Structures are given as C-alpha cells and as structure tokens.
C-alpha cells in the first residue's frame, strides 16, 4: 500500500476519476436493473428511461411463475459448488505433481493438458456426447460434474503459480524429512492461496454462467440450471426481455452475497503469502 499522505487536490481528483469509471462500468448493470422493472414494451425505448414510470416488481414474481426458478437456482448452486471443490482440489494436487515431482514422461503428459486448452469445446462436444451417452451420464448432474471438474485449465493455471515457489524451499523441507505429501500440505498449499482463490473465482463464475453445457446435456426440467431458464425467455413465438433482465438480476444475487463478504479475504489472503519478497 502506498501510505504517503497525498495532496488533497490529487485525492479529490482520484475520487472523481474512480466515480466516473465505476459509473461507466456499472451503466449496463444499472440498465439491466431498470429494465427488469419495466413493461416489455418499455425496455428498449429511445431515448432510454433510466427510471421506469411505474415499478413492475411483479416481473420478479413472474419469473418464479414461468420457470421453477428456485429449483434452477438450487441446481446451479449445487453444481457450481461441487465442481469448484473438485476442480480446485484435484488441480492443485496435479499441478504440484507437474511442477515439483520429477519423473519420466511428466512434460509429455503436461503437453496433453496444454493441447486441450486451445481446442474450443464445440469441436469435441460431439465425441464427448457419444461417450457420455454410452456411460449413461447424459441428463444427469453427475455427468456434467465429470465434464467440468477436470478441466485442464485449472492445472495449467496452478502450475504457473507453483513454478514461482522456490525449489530451495522444498529441498530444505525434504532434507528435514518431510514427505512429498507433507510438503504439498504444509508448504505449497498455504503458499498458493492466491492461486487457489483465482481458480475458485474463475471456476465458480464459469460454471454458474455456463449455458452450452447444460443446454446440450440436460433434458429433464428437474436438472436444468439458471442460464437455461434465462434462455427460455428468448423464444421463437415471443421474447420477454423484462423477464430475462429480472432473472439475470436474480442470478447475480447469490454471487453478490458470496463475493462481498469474501472480498476482503480474496485480496488479503493473496497479499499475506508474498512469494518473492
């Protein structure tokens, strides 16, 4: 932190700049919120009315009436939490293996991981689907969890971070008689909090907002998630933008509730574990 006392004028300018930047960034989200309280016919009027003439709070009620929003939220939350946990745990384990253990074929294996990162999902969606069908995992939460939980990206990300952990540190621990598992648990894991946090946010948001995966894999109403629900309002026969916006606002709330209290921890947790200092 830069703790030097600043010139009050500079400070004031800094606030103005920040407020302007924040306003620009939040503009589309304010737009979303305002549209969620309008009639369908008022959503895209020119020029924009930022404050609706009458507040249609019933839009939020209609979202619950038209789709089983509670169920979808539960499904989204369940999948997101499970996948994030598996992802963070197995990826950090694997990334340690790829950085700090030495064995033959290690780099070749890792190349396989990197190779898949560059391939868009649309390309292997089809063979993957056939396989899942044979396993009987289509239209199950388990199947979707299996698909998402072992994404190569997490390993790639954590390996990048682990490489910055000095090997001398681990060597010293080895000399002290700590096993590889001990080193991982007692030294690397605490040190990699920032990386784990980065991966957690990334996985959480990706799964929470994922549309294509659930669209392809879930058929039953009881398995569907929020993004699918939102997409249902964008139909061939009619489109309800006010409901899309209301549902999107609703889907932001859980993330908001999670993010705000954890926010301090995110940045501080990262800060306390200085690696190179």
């Amino acid at each position: 932190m830069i703790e030097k006392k600043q010139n009050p004028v500079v400070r004031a300018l800094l606030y103005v700049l920040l407020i302007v930047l924040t306003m620009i960034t939040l503009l589309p989200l304010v737009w979303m919120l305002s549209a969620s309280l309008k009639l369908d016919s008022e959503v895209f009027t020119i020029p924009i009315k930022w404050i609706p003439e009458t507040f249609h709070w019933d839009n939020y009620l209609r979202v619950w009436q038209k789709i089983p929003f509670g169920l979808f939220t539960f499904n989204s939350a369940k999948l997101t939490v499970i996948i994030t946990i598996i992802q963070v745990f197995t990826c950090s384990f694997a990334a340690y293996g790829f950085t700090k253990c030495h064995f033959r074929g290690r780099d070749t294996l890792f190349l396989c991981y990197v190779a898949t990162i560059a391939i868009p999902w649309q390309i292997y969606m089809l063979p993957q689907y056939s396989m899942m069908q044979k396993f009987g995992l289509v239209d199950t939460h388990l199947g979707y969890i299996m698909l998402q939980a072992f994404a190569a990206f997490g390993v790639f990300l954590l390996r990048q971070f682990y490489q910055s952990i000095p090997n001398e540190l681990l060597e010293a621990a080895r000399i002290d008689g700590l096993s590889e598992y001990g080193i991982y648990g007692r030294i690397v894991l605490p040190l990699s909090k920032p990386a784990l946090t980065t991966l957690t946010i990334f996985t959480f948001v990706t799964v929470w907002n994922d549309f294509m995966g659930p669209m392809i894999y879930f058929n039953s109403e009881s398995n569907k998630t929020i993004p699918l629900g939102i997409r249902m309002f964008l139909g061939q026969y009619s489109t309800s933008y006010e409901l899309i916006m209301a549902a999107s606002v609703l889907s932001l709330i859980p993330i908001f509730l999670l993010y705000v209290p954890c926010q301090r921890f995110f940045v501080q947790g990262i800060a306390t574990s200085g690696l190179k200092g």
Partner: protein
Amino acid sequence: MKMKRIAALGVSAMMAASVLTACGGPGSSTPASTPASGSTGGSTGEEITLKVATWDNTSNPSVQNAVDAFMAANPNIKVELMDIPSADYTTKLTTMLNGGADMDAFFVKDADTTKSLADKGQLADLTEYISADGVDLAAYNGLAENFNYDGKQYGLPARTDYYVMFYNKDMFDAKGMEYPSNDWTWADFEEMAKQLTGDGKYGAFIHTWQACVMNWAVQDGKHTIMDYETGYDFFKPYYEMVLRMQDEGSIQSYGELKSANIHYSGPFAQGTVGMMPMGTWYMATIIEAVKNGESTVNWGVATIPHPEGVEAGWTVGSATPMCINANTDKKDAAWELVKFVTGEEGAAEYAKVGAIPGRADDAAIAEIAAMEGMPEGTAEALKVTNISLDRPIVDKVADVNQMLGEQHSLIMLEQDTIDNVLASMAEQAEAIING
C-alpha cells in the same frame, strides 16, 4: 435386463396387434388402439416411455395438447417432451442424433434439413407403417411429398405455416383507408404502408430475417434460394422495395430492430405498426396476448400480397415434420405417436389452439377461423391456392441459407450496394453448392 426386453417385445407385439385391428376397421383412419391398449395396460402393467424433442413448449401449447390427448388414448405409453430453446434446437438435435441419444421421436424445426437427416440414415423409414395402417398421404395437401425421398417416407407433416399479412384495423380506420383485400400486390402493400405511416407509427414491419425479403422473390415458385446461376437478380426488386421503405421511414430500420433486440411480436401487439407479413404461427400468440390483456390491438389478417403477374392466393411457407429416430428400439410405439399427432385427432388439437395442422382441410381452417379471438375474414385469408416452399429441401440448403443471412445484413445495413452483395451471394453459393 432381459426381462425388460422381453416385456417390451410383448408390448410391441400387442401394439402391432392393435394396429392390425385398427386397419381392419372399415373406412376409419383413426387408430382403434384405445380398447386394445386398455387390455394391454391391464394384463402386463408395463409402460413404454417415449422421449420426444420439441421447442418452446411453454409458449406453444399445440404439441403438449396433442401429446396429452395421445396419452389419454394410450394409457400404456408415456410421452416425455424435451423442451429445448428454439435458438439452440438444431444444434442440440444434431448432437443428440449423432451421439446416439435416448430419443424416440422429434419434430424437425427447419424442414429443409430433413433430407440431410434422412441421407445420413438418422430417420426411420415410415413407408411400411403407412401402408400397413392405411394412412392416406393425400390428406396432407401435397406436403408429405417433401419428406419422401427415393420412394421412402421419412416424416409426416404435423403442422404447416405460411405467410399471411397481419394488420392493425384501428390504424386503417384512423386514416379512413380500406383494409387490405386478399388479392393485392406488393406494390399495393408498399403504397399502403406509406399512407399509414405517421404520428410516430410505422406503416409496416419487416422483420430482420432474410426470409422476410427473400420469400417474396420465391413466392411465384419459379426460383428458389439455390438458383445462384441467375445471379440472384430475382431478389433485387424486393430488396429495392424494402430499402425504399426503410429510407422513407415507413418501416423501422433493420439496424434499429437488430440493436434494440426487437422481436416481431412486440411492435405489432403494441399497435405501433400498420401491417406485418408474418407466419401463421403468430395467430396463436397474438390471440393469447389479447386474451390476457398484454395487448389491445384490434387486428385483422389478409392473404399475403402477390408479385405482379402471379395469381392471388400464392404464398410461401413450410411444414414441420414429425420423424422417428432410426436408432430407437421403440419404433412401434413411436409410430403410434406420430400417427396420432399427424393424424385427425392431433390435427384437431392443433387447430383448437390456432395452429394449422399438416392435414388441414377446409373444415380445419374453418375451425381455426372460428376460434375465439380470431378476427372476421380469417377463413378467407387463410384459404390459399399454392404454398411455395421458403427453402427447397435439397442438399446444402442450410449452408446457402446461412450465407444468405450474412449477406442479407450487409444490404439491410446499407454496407454495400444491392448489386455487389447479390453478386457476392451468387459467387459464394456456387462455391458452396459445387465445392
């Protein structure tokens, strides 16, 4: 495992038996499966579950109603509808069929892809069922032929939709103008749109789909969107018309419609446009909107205008076929469903909610026209003499259509001249078709 299979076999054998009895019934094409299936249910208690793919099920009750009626008539067959968002329907259907998904029957959203599906061997051949059950293909007004390739029938048209003109009666009244007749030309349309424009209202609404311009060029049945050899010059008069209307302000511009995410159902229901050429599927939507108070528009419907020199009553449209997955092991039960939905009972359910069934006859049209909320004169407007296909059912039509859509936006946004874009369309279409 084995037990189940044997039981399933038993049921299908019984199903076949019920089919045979149905055929024995003189002069009736309705399945007499009701009594037979009653006994099946009683003796084995084994249920068959069919999985059927459809789209936008919540806003389109016809499929659900037909399926419910089917289940009521066949208590031993349960039908599970998989509701898929319309924009992703083709993607998901392709993945499911290729991936060997557990799906027995489905509707094809873009009828022009039916042939490709059949060529790939993904559709069950229905010819034998049809002849065994004596289904009269003539009842489909020629639509069934679109799904017949090399003498094999791969699907039956469940519903058909074609373009008609929706108009706002109040706006015509306010200008003291007469409502459109069922015999009018596109020039008449353009002129009326001009007169109706004013007071913040648009005379007409042309939706952003390329179909809403190109369809009028294939309406005469002489050309299809695959005729690149002509340099696509038959599109030109209609692009010129629409651009003129856009410049004069009698329609809202393509750019605005796109960026404001305007769905065609909005402006018409809000009463801000005078006329809108749109598919017959919109009738059910607007009736519903008026009924539940979302819209107060006083609407009417007329036959689509025709090009100069073409008879009145020629329109453009397509059919929605119902097909059976070639890989299903419940073909017999699936056929029962297809037969029912595309048959008389299914047709009646479709007509009840304002959807035109594939086997629509005068009686069905009359029933739709008599629906509560349907304006006067609907029966006459819906009576058409020829429906040209919007997209021909041939190879590569999906690719060509995709390319035309991309190019369409260039003309409508006036990013290039019509002549340049048409030339580019022809060049690309040739590469796609011969490449």
